[in-house]
């Protein structure tokens, strides 16, 4: 029996060493990279941008760093998070960015009537959790909060290869074939809206923020604004367009009112012409690359941003 236990122990030790080595190799391989293009925690380290784009999937899809760099001469980076229309999440993401970068001068947050305050105690669908799985093992101090937000458990944090195997990202980690999925630094979706698969409807209006939730949103935004101020960052809110079937003037007034109340610079990019042209969208609430270009034209001509950025024409 003694010999058995000795050999079992020895085998287990060797096994542990082997999987640890493999895990370390994979961690080195993915260091500083993204494996799907969405998990930009390390990709956006040491960028030290002047302008940071924040927000939900709309923030990720609508803000083109290239445009801002060219027109406002501000080094830009987009850290919008696919799948999360919550201020809380945006703030978490911003904090992660700031732990690895110098504070930017400006933060542009995408806002619209679908944005909520957010509450970590309620289970929200953790979009793209798979992609973030390679951060789960022995997370760095800077990434710990995000790893916990994604509810990676102790097995995933401390057992080598567990998270990578469980979320099936082994081939992605090795090949890194999607590492540069978004070379333009934002989603830049060239798809046209497939109205057969995804028919036009007004269902999105059911997800507008409810009146009872507005005070929470206000508080969250106030908190975010205060946080930015404490880091000498100027927070700006831009309301980006949705397709007219999801647009309601009254609902789209709410973000404006909140920002005015909190003294946060607000720009409304929901132009009638952009909203009513289906060619600008790849689904009800997301602009495609074409639409983004239209919106950028609008922003440039509007000159509000010039004032906010204090750039003289």
């Amino acid at each position, binding site marked *: *029996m003694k010999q058995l236990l000795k050999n079992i122990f020895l085998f287990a030790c060797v096994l542990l060493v082997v999987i640890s080595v493999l895990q370390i190799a994979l961690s080195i391989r993915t260091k500083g990279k993204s494996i799907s293009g969405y998990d930009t925690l390390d990709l956006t380290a040491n960028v030290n941008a002047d302008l940071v784009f924040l927000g939900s999937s709309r923030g990720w899809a609508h803000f083109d760093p290239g445009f801002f760099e060219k027109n406002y001469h501000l080094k830009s980076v987009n850290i919008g998070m696919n799948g999360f229309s919550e201020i809380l999440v945006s703030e978490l993401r911003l904090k992660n960015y700031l732990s690895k970068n110098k504070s930017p001068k400006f933060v542009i947050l995408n806002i619209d009537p679908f944005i909520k305050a957010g509450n970590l105690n309620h289970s929200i669908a953790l979009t793209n959790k798979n992609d973030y799985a390679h951060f789960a093992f022995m997370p760095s101090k800077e990434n710990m909060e995000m790893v916990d937000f994604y509810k990676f458990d102790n097995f995933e944090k401390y057992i080598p*290869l567990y998270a990578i195997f469980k979320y099936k990202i*082994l081939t992605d980690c090795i090949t890194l074939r999607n590492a540069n999925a978004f070379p333009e630094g934002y989603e830049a979706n060239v798809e046209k809206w497939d109205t057969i698969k995804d028919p036009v409807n007004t269902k999105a209006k059911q997800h507008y923020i409810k009146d009872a939730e507005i005070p929470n949103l206000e508080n969250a935004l106030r908190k975010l604004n205060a946080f930015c101020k404490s880091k000498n960052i100027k927070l700006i809110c831009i309301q980006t367009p949705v397709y007219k079937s999801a647009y309601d003037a009254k609902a789209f007034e709410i973000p404006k009112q909140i920002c005015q109340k909190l003294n946060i610079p607000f720009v409304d990019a929901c132009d009638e012409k952009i909203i009513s042209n289906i060619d600008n969208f790849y689904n009800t609430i997301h602009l495609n690359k074409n639409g983004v270009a239209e919106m950028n034209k609008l922003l440039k001509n509007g000159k509000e941003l010039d004032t906010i950025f204090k750039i003289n024409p």
Partner: protein
Amino acid sequence: MTFNSIEFLAFFLSFYLLYWQIVGKSLKMQNALLLLGSYLFYAWFSWKFLALIIISSAFSYCCGLSISKAENEKRKSFFLYLAIFQSLGLLLFFKYFNFFITAVADLLATINLNPNIHTLKIILPLGISFYTFRLISYILDVYNEKIDAANDWVAFFNYVAFFPCLLAGPIDRADNFIPQLEKKRQFSYAQTVDGFRQILWGLFKKIVIADSCAPITNQLFDHYQDYPGSSLLIGAFLYIIQIYADFSGYSDMAIGIAKLLGFNIPKNFNYPFFAQNIAEFWKRWHISLTSWMTEYVYTPLSFIFRSSGKKGVMLSIIINFVLVGLWHGSNWTFIIFGLLHGLYFIPLILNGTLTKRNKTTSNLKMWFGIFSTFAIVMLTAVIFRCESISMAFEYYTHMFSKSLISKPLITTGYVVLMITLLYITLMFVTEWFGKNENYGIAGTFIKKSRALRWSFYMFLVISIYYFSFVDKTQLFMYLQF
């Protein structure tokens, strides 16, 4: 808790330590602990049916003793039939009552009689197909004086409920197992290592091979109308391999666990896909069931029909395999499955290959035999899988239609399919080189350095680790029987 679960690991670890370290000195205590453990294991799955297995064990135990004490033939037969009636009767009721009722109703409907027949809501007690056969073989062996009736009821109850084999076999025989229960088990380092090795191989087959095939085959069989014939052919191919990997993997784990407890259970699979004809196939597939059926069903049948020569043998074999099919489940598809296999024997019986041994076969003949046997067995996998004969028929017609030569579509993608095929190849190559061993990796690299052996085991362990996240809901297939 199936063998590949955390709960089982915890259970077995504590059980193992108690078994060897604490009660290892006393046979009585060891057997008592074993029985307790087996019942706990069973109760975990279905404590409601625990009473049933205990009652059946007690009944057969008493009948066995009555037979041995009986003074005349008539009394002996009485207890024999009593025991068989009790155990077989329960099996027939739980497993086939609804099927029988529906079949009778369908039959009566054809002559326009529609009696009010209700099927009962019957849940199949876990393992009943397996332990019933252990009970029946026991009582028949006692009656035929092949073994003495068991005096030690703890040993006998252990024989019936031995937890490694309880849920899905192998169906061990009393003359092999009860003597082992009546002797104290000695801890053997070699046997324990061998057991671990066999468990590793079983886990590998189940988790890496069977559970990888399952998502692909499920998709193909559930939506066969949407796929070209070439995909359906891949589905049949993967499915027969899936059954093999799942069931032989489970058997390996059961036998391996038994070894860890000091018991020797005969092998249940002997590389069936290396068989060169259907007779050899069935000597290598689910050996415990086939040998059970051969001894208690085929032999009596072939004796009764012995004056009818070849026709008698054919009839016996067909009946035998229809019953084998039926054992798997109460569905016409299983009956057809069995019938097909029985019919497969006919060419062999007719040209006398069954009885004469060919001393030398050329390599070409050998490979031809292997591939053709595999092909005809693979075809029966379809009817085994389908829920109805009509569905199976549609699957076959789809598979052999023009779309057979079109490009196959696999929803999980070609990469996953390629990896699965690579692992399947690894399994067969390993088993080919180990085909004289009790199980695939028993002798792999045994004569080489420990480093090489351990590297191979590491590779298996890490593969199991990787694939263990594939789909946690894939229970062992044979648990449903």
